[in-house]
């Protein structure tokens, strides 16, 4: 450990002793469940979410639409490719980057890849790992098959979402992440890229996609996880 770090932490320790204050409340914050009980907790939450599913789907749809996201479906797994194609055609996208993970891409588009591909593409097609109904949020996790740029660089983002992956609140996501080190990137996407920096006028697409659309997939599609 370098000396700067030791001196830094020593200063923090000394300050903590001098300025000690008793907490205004004694309960603990968000509690990490003990590993042994984690599986039980997940199972019961999974059941609760399954019972709530119709509600969660409609809440997600309402909230996503409220922030300017178009939601299509739910469609059967076999119709996803066609629906994605319709979405792309509606926005006149020709060149696409994609990480559909398990779904076939529609015919008739130039499929680009890599960083340069993502920067040149009209649209990015991704599969979402989760969604949060309360805020209409999509959750996209990076891995070997799921780069970060397709949901970020093009002006259009088309997301495929299984309705089983719709959660209620952010705490559900943290509950279902595998214990141990989280993935390198988990991104919450709530509506298009937006700014109000000039005269408080809401403008979309300032850096990320200005168009975000979701294709909901009806129950029964296998998970990618």
């Amino acid at each position, binding site marked *: 450990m370098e000396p*700067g*770090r030791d*001196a*830094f*932490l020593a*200063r*923090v320790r*000394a*300050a*903590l002793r*001098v*300025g*000690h*204050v008793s*907490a*205004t*409340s004694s309960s*603990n*914050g*968000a*509690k*990490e469940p003990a590993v042994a009980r984690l599986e039980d907790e997940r199972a019961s939450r999974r059941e609760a979410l399954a019972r709530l599913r119709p509600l969660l789907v409609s809440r997600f749809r309402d*909230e996503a639409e409220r922030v300017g996201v178009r939601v299509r479906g739910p469609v059967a797994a076999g119709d996803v490719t066609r629906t994605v194609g319709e979405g792309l055609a509606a926005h006149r996208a020709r060149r696409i980057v994609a990480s559909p993970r398990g779904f076939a891409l529609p015919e008739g588009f130039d499929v680009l890849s*890599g*960083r340069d591909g993502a*920067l040149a593409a009209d649209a990015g097609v991704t599969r979402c790992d989760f969604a*949060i109904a*309360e*805020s209409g949020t999509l959750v996209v996790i*990076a*891995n*070997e098959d799921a*780069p*970060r*740029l397709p949901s970020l660089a093009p002006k259009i983002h088309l997301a495929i979402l299984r309705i089983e992956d719709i959660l209620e*609140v*952010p*705490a559900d996501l*943290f509950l279902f*992440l595998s214990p141990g*080190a*989280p*993935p*390198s*990137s988990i*991104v*919450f*996407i709530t509506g298009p*890229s*937006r*700014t109000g*920096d*000039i*005269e*408080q*006028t809401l*403008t979309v697409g*300032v*850096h*990320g996609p200005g168009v975000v659309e979701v294709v909901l997939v009806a129950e029964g599609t296998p998970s990618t996880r």
Partner: protein
Amino acid sequence: MKPTSEQFREHVDEALADWGLRAALAAATGRFVSLRQDAFAAFPEGGALRDQARTIKEEAIARLDEHLEQLAFAVEARGGNVHFAADADAACRMVIEIARQRGVTLAVKSKSMTTEEIALNEALEHAGIRVVETDLGEFIIQLAVEGPSHLIAPAVHKTREQVATLFREKLGYSGEDSVPALCAFAREFLRGEFVRAGMGVSGVNFAVAETGTIAIVENEGNARLTTTLPPVHVAIMGMEKVVPRLADLAVFLRILARSATGQKMSSYVSLLTGPRREREEDGAQEFHLVILDNGRSRLLADPELRESLYCIRCGACLNVCPVYRAIGGHAYGWVYPGPIGAVLTPAYLGESRAPDLPFASTLCGACADVCPVKIALPHRLLDLRARVVAEKKRTKGNDAKSYVFRAWAWLLTHPSLYRASAKLARFALKPMAKDGRIDALPGRLAGWTRTRDFPLPAAEPFHARWRKRWSQPSARDGTPSTTERTE
């Protein structure tokens, strides 16, 4: 950013004379306030979540040493690098060093108050590294060579015509003055900078000790690009940003955007853990976390001011503050404006370098009501006022004002004299009054009545009415009569 908080009074005069600024501020803060109100009105869990947020911050700070060690360990375990910086200079040197070793000549930046605090841009430019702010508002004020005027909306004081002129002069813009056209131009221009940059610099909203994850909250997507396109990502955090567990984020993510802009969730929240992993296609290959003290340990050692370290920079206290709404952010003379700025600026820089800021408050309490982590801002301002006054007394002795207040205190503790002088005041002021109100006081008091009336002391003062009421029979069963009027 070089602090100029000592000139607060001059700044205030300038700001108050700028009617364009005042109109923009009134519109922006008014909008944020009502959006926040609506967001919490439709959110019954809000109260409980604020309590939880407060508890988590208390816990995080009470064992800050352990949490920082844990955070550093976790970041390094994921292949990241951690740097501890005692002050602004050290932090800037570390970032320059990282840039030099990799031959970086261009860095892109996403919005971060902490980098403003340490004046990182100036330091990098000085070292020959060009820095481009990529948040649209920050980009605009960087072009205009100004500082941010609001935590959330840094360019709130600029009109579209001013922005278009700026783009024309500095970047050769030739489009129209419409907001979408200006945004589209900025997108294209900045995309080029993202692609060329050798380093991306971001702030941090929360850092998770247990996993080494940093959370960055934004609406534009420029922070995502900053952390994804350049090969090196440097994140700079004040040491108070640490929270113990990943699950704690579930609490903060639900109140931060609601408090700031009334959104349920900001457009983007990135949770990043170390650099890109093996076989991943994109994301920075190298990740550095700079943890900054820069005066924070002084606040930590101060039982009164410690809670100001719980601030999550949502900006809610600014929007409701009557003083901020009139004078805007620049007047505060440093990075942090509004009620929290009036606490942090003297706390970080020393009271003598911002002696007027603790007094820039009506103590109405609106800030404490909206603060998502329940910082008792008015009390902290009172603590700082007491220190400023004590210091003045020590160095300069008593001034005229302190004699006035002492005389006032003496008068208030002598009821019969107080009553006599109130009568005298009414007698003296009566010739100036019309319908019981004075609309122009003479001499040095004239400023008071320029925008409001001064009431004439009542013919029958409060204490007399009180005594009369309680001597009436109806008052004894606890229902004082309210029918008679004495005006």
